[in-house]
C-alpha cells in the first residue's frame, strides 16, 4: 500500500499512463484530478473529442460495466459522474468550436405524476458520460412536454422513466400520441424504471426497456448505430 500513499503527479505521466490514471480517478470520483487531467491533455495537443472518447467515455464505460455487474452502486456512480461532469465542463465549449461529431441527442423525463428522478438523473449522467447530448425535462411530464422538446431539439431518442406502477401506464399514452401524430418512427423510444420489465416495454410499443443506466447507454449506442446504417443503406 505504501506506493499508494505517494502523490501521483499527473503531469509527469506519459499520455498512456495519464489516461489509465484518469480511468482510476473517474472510478474513484475525483473531480479535481479529472479536470487537471483534461487540461494536461489539452496542453499536450489532444483534440477535445479524443479526450472525451478515449479518457472520459472510456473511464465511464468501466464504471458502467461495474454498475451493471453489481460491483458499484448508485453513490459511487454519482461521484464518478460528478467527476466526469467536471471534465465535460472544460470540453463542452471546445467540442462545439471544433465541430466534433455527435453521438446523438436524447430528450429524457419522468412521466406525469411521477416525481422520482434518481434513475432518470443517473441515465442522463451516464448518457452524457457516453458522449450523448441530453435535454432533461425533469419530473412529472405530460405528453405535450415530450413532444414539444423532441421537435424543438431535433432529438434522436426519447427516454421515459417511471418508478410507480401507478404512473408507468402513462408511457403508453405518450407513445400512442406519437403514433396518432405519425411521428412514432422518427424517434428511438427507450423506457426504464424499477417496476418495468421487457414485456411491459414491448406491450406499450417502446423500442426497448433498459434495466439500468448502463444498459440504457449500450442500447442507445446500438440503436443509433443501426439508424446510421439504415441511413447509409437507404
Amino acid at each position, binding site marked *: 500500500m505504501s506506493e499508494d500513499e505517494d502523490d501521483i503527479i499527473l503531469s509527469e505521466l506519459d499520455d498512456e499512463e495519464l489516461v489509465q490514471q484518469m480511468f482510476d480517478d473517474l472510478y474513484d470520483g475525483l473531480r479535481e484530478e479529472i479536470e487537471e487531467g483534461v487540461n494536461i491533455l489539452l496542453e499536450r495537443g489532444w483534440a477535445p473529442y479524443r479526450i472525451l472518447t478515449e479518457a472520459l467515455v472510456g473511464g465511464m464505460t468501466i464504471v458502467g460495466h461495474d454498475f451493471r455487474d453489481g*460491483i458499484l452502486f448508485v453513490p459511487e456512480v454519482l461521484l464518478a459522474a*460528478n467527476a466526469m461532469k467536471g471534465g465535460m465542463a472544460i470540453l463542452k465549449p471546445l467540442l462545439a468550436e471544433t465541430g466534433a461529431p455527435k453521438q446523438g441527442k436524447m430528450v429524457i423525463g419522468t412521466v406525469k405524476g411521477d416525481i422520482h428522478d434518481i434513475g432518470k438523473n443517473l441515465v442522463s449522467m451516464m448518457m452524457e458520460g457516453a458522449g450523448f447530448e441530453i435535454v432533461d425535462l425533469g419530473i412529472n411530464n405530460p405528453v405535450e412536454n415530450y413532444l414539444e422538446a423532441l421537435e424543438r431539439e431535433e432529438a434522436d431518442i426519447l427516454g421515459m422513466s417511471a418508478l410507480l406502477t401507478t404512473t*408507468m401506464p402513462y408511457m403508453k399514452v405518450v407513445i400512442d400520441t406519437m403514433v396518432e401524430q405519425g411521428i412514432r418512427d422518427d424517434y428511438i423510444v427507450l423506457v426504464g424504471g424499477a417496476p418495468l420489465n421487457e414485456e411491459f416495454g414491448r406491450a406499450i410499443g417502446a423500442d426497448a426497456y433498459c434495466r439500468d443506466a448502463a444498459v440504457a447507454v449500450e442500447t442507445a449506442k446500438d440503436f443509433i448505430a443501426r439508424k446510421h446504417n439504415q441511413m447509409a443503406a437507404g
Partner: protein
Amino acid sequence: MSDALQKALATRDWLLADGATGTNLFNMGLMSGDAPEFWNETAPDKIRALYRGAVEAGSDLFLTNSFGANASRLKLHEAQHRAFELSRLSAEIGREIADAADRPVIVAGSVGPTGEIMGAAGTLDHATAVEMFEETASGLMEGGADLLWVETISAPEEFRAAAEAFERIGAPWCGTMSFDTAGRTMMGVTSADMVKLVDGLPNPPLAFGANCGVGASDLLRTVLGFVAQGTERPIIAKGNAGIPKYEDGHIHYDGTPELMAEYAVLARDSGARIIGGCCGTMPDHLRAMRAALESQPPGPRPTLDRIAEALGGFSSESDGTGESAPAKPRRGGRRRRA
C-alpha cells in the same frame, strides 16, 4: 402512542401485515399521476375500504395511506405544506377502522422515502430530511397511529434521518428497506449492512426488514441474510405479489394467492415475525396467506434452493453478502491529494 405491537409480538409467533396500497387504490380508480394521499381528505370512504380490505382479510396490522405524505413528494402537487395534515387524516381513518374490528388491529403510520438523494453526491441534507420526516411522523401520531413505519428506503442516510425524527417525537417504530439491485438496495446496502445499521441506532426499531424489491424469492433471500447475522430483533417480510404485467392499460401482478400463501409460510420458516405483501398484494392474497400461516405447522428454515423451487428463481446470483459477492476490484486507487 401505544405498545400494541410489543404486546402482539410478545403473545404471537407471527403477525400478518397488510398488502399493497397503490395497487388497491389504482383498482378503485386512482388515476395515473394523482397523489393517493389527497384521498384521505377528498375520498375517505375509499381509504376506509382500503384499510377494511386488509382487516377483513385477516391482517393484524396495516399501514396508513401516507407513503408520499412528505414535503418533498407533495411538492410535486404544490401541497408541500400539507404533509402534517394529510398524514394526520390517514391515521385518523386508520384508527377508526382498527377500533371497529372485533380483534386487536395495529395502525402503522407509513413513512415513505423523500425521493431525494442524500450523502456525498446528494441534494438533501440530514437536517432537512429529519425535519421532513418529523412533520409526517407528528401528523401520523396525532391522528392516532400506534407506531411509525418507514418503508422502501434505499439509503442508510435516509433511514438514519427517519430514525432521528422518530426519536425526537419519542414514537415507537419499524423500518424496512427495499432490496432491488442484485440483492442490495439501490444504494448498495446488503442485508448484513442493514442489521449493522439498525443495531447501531440510538433508538432501534421494534422490528426491521425488507419490503417491495424484485420478487418474493429475492425478498426471502434477504430475510435469510438478516437471520444469518444472528439478530434477535423481529424481522419483517413484505414482498411483492410477483412481477408487474401490463394488461389492457392496467398493471397486474402475476403472483397468485396460492403463491403468496406459500411465500408467507416460507417467510415464517425463514425467521420473519411480521409477514405481509407489498405491490400487487390484494385482500384475496392476504386471506390465502392467513389461512396458510394458521393451517401449516412451522417447518425447517428453507434453503435457497427450496425457495427458488417454490417461488421462482432469484434476480441475481449473489446478494452481495458472503464470499460469493462480487468484489470491488482495487483499481489503481490513490489517496486524495490535499
